[in-house]
């Protein structure tokens, strides 16, 4: 097996693993049970997004996706910091009163 073919198969396997990881994080976002749990799962999803943007370099052959990985790595952090500030100040209720009786 040549190196290029091995790389293609590895990219496919890694893609399947990353999709499974994204599904796990999405289930945690749906389940909660509290707002910080959801924000942690969002953080995890943005990290998976960085990895997927990296994989796109191999699959598509275009190196522009490295810039996308760099951008997602920076922006995901801002979202989490903003949510943390809102939760700490009480602007977002951590125990989600909207579905409480």
């Amino acid at each position, binding site marked *: 097996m040549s*190196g290029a073919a091995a790389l293609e198969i590895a990219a496919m396997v890694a893609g399947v693993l*990353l999709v499974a*990881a994204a599904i796990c994080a999405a289930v945690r976002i749906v389940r909660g049970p509290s707002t910080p749990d959801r924000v942690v799962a969002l953080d995890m999803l943005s*990290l998976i997004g960085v990895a997927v943007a*990296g994989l796109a*370099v191999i699959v598509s052959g275009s190196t522009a996706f*490295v810039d996308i990985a*760099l951008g997602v790595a920076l922006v995901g*952090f801002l979202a989490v910091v903003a949510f*943390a500030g809102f939760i700490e100040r009480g602007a977002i209720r951590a125990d989600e009163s909207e579905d409480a009786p």
Partner: protein
Amino acid sequence: MMDWIGAFFLVFGAAVCLVAAIGVLRFPDFFMRMHAATKAGVAGAGLVLIGIGFAAPSLEIAIKIALANLFLLLTIPVAGHLLGRAGYVAGVPLWGATQRDELSGVLSRGVFDRPVKNAGDAAKPGQHAAD
């Protein structure tokens, strides 16, 4: 040879990402989930990026990947720290089997109106010793 090393890092990093996501899904309380996401998640994404660097070797990509890894290592721990503090202050319940809370009395905690039951609250290892 570089292709093989790149393939190894791609699969290894994706597997670490999957382990981190399973941790986010399965760990019993918020603070453990945060550790899984911030430690194993950064390791997984960083390893996948390093694999890209081996698979498509050029100086430009290497610099961008080094930058992306640096930003991940700098920013995700800060985000995790802030989020953990916010969760503690908001009053996210600890797992039932937690032995000690070093922050009690240091930070004030809110109280949830509605009790949140963490998965695994029933399995308290401390209680077997007491029985």
